[in-house]
């Protein structure tokens, strides 16, 4: 796992890259130095690389939960992507940028209390835990903690 974590700041931030596809629970999120509150996640990047050029359709899932059970806990975010891209071509790098706010304005990122991620062959809530098989899935996540 590659990570950059800024700790000695009022608003700690993190940029992490890690490999999947099996479920990764309780991804590190920086916490504010004082309040210890939730973190705002601004960007999630995900890519898959195949060792065999498969074409299975897959879903990248994000849970606002430190320890979800994918067989019973519905994902908070679920996005389709095509696994199995040719590694020579570096495959796809889809990603999502999130903004959150209210009638008074919008800010980069949305709050998460905790994050777990999973790359599954099943849409929606998994009936069986079925991670993609076409190859590793690389996830990049940018988060900042605010007081």
């Amino acid at each position, binding site marked *: 796992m590659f990570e950059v974590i800024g700790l000695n700041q009022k608003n700690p931030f993190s940029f992490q890259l890690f490999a999947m596809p099996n479920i990764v629970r309780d991804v590190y999120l920086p916490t504010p130095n004082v309040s210890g509150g939730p973190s705002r996640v601004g960007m999630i990047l995900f890519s898959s690389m195949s060792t065999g050029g498969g074409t299975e359709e897959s879903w990248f899932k994000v849970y606002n939960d430190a320890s979800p059970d994918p067989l019973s806990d*519905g994902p908070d975010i679920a996005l389709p992507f095509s696994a199995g891209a040719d590694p020579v071509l570096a495959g796809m790098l889809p990603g999502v940028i999130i903004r*959150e706010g209210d009638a008074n304005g919008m800010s980069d990122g949305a709050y998460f209390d905790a994050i777990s991620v999973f790359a599954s062959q099943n849409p929606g809530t998994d009936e069986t835990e079925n991670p993609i098989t076409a190859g590793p899935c690389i996830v990049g996540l940018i988060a900042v903690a605010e007081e």
Partner: protein
Amino acid sequence: MATVFSGLPAGVNVFNVATLPLSNILEDTNAGVLRKDVLYHAPPAPPIVTIQIVGFRIDNTLNPGQDVWLKLWRVADPTVGVTAPHAILRCRAGKITEYAVQVDFGGGHLSYQVLITPGTKGTTAPTNAVRVALACLVSE
């Protein structure tokens, strides 16, 4: 001239932005109601074969006590709570959330509904209206 979408339900408006490709902003003032096959061309207009959504905006400010999830299906007639959604996006209680991400609906069918349960299960809509806007590219 851009073709007009057929049979839009009350509360759903589609604003055509450009014609090559068909670029539209779909605005729904009450997305807690199930919208089936919402972008549709009645014959003799050519059928829609692909829908690409490149931006999502969920306005849940009227529900300060309920998190909601926008669920989108790529079938014309999903069974809510049973048919697995093709995409799911969260909006926290009392908030507006925007997602910049491309989601493709090959086959040309788009159905959606905002519900108060994540994942596949759940059939209950939010207590108050949730406004949704989708930036769509439509190919015939």
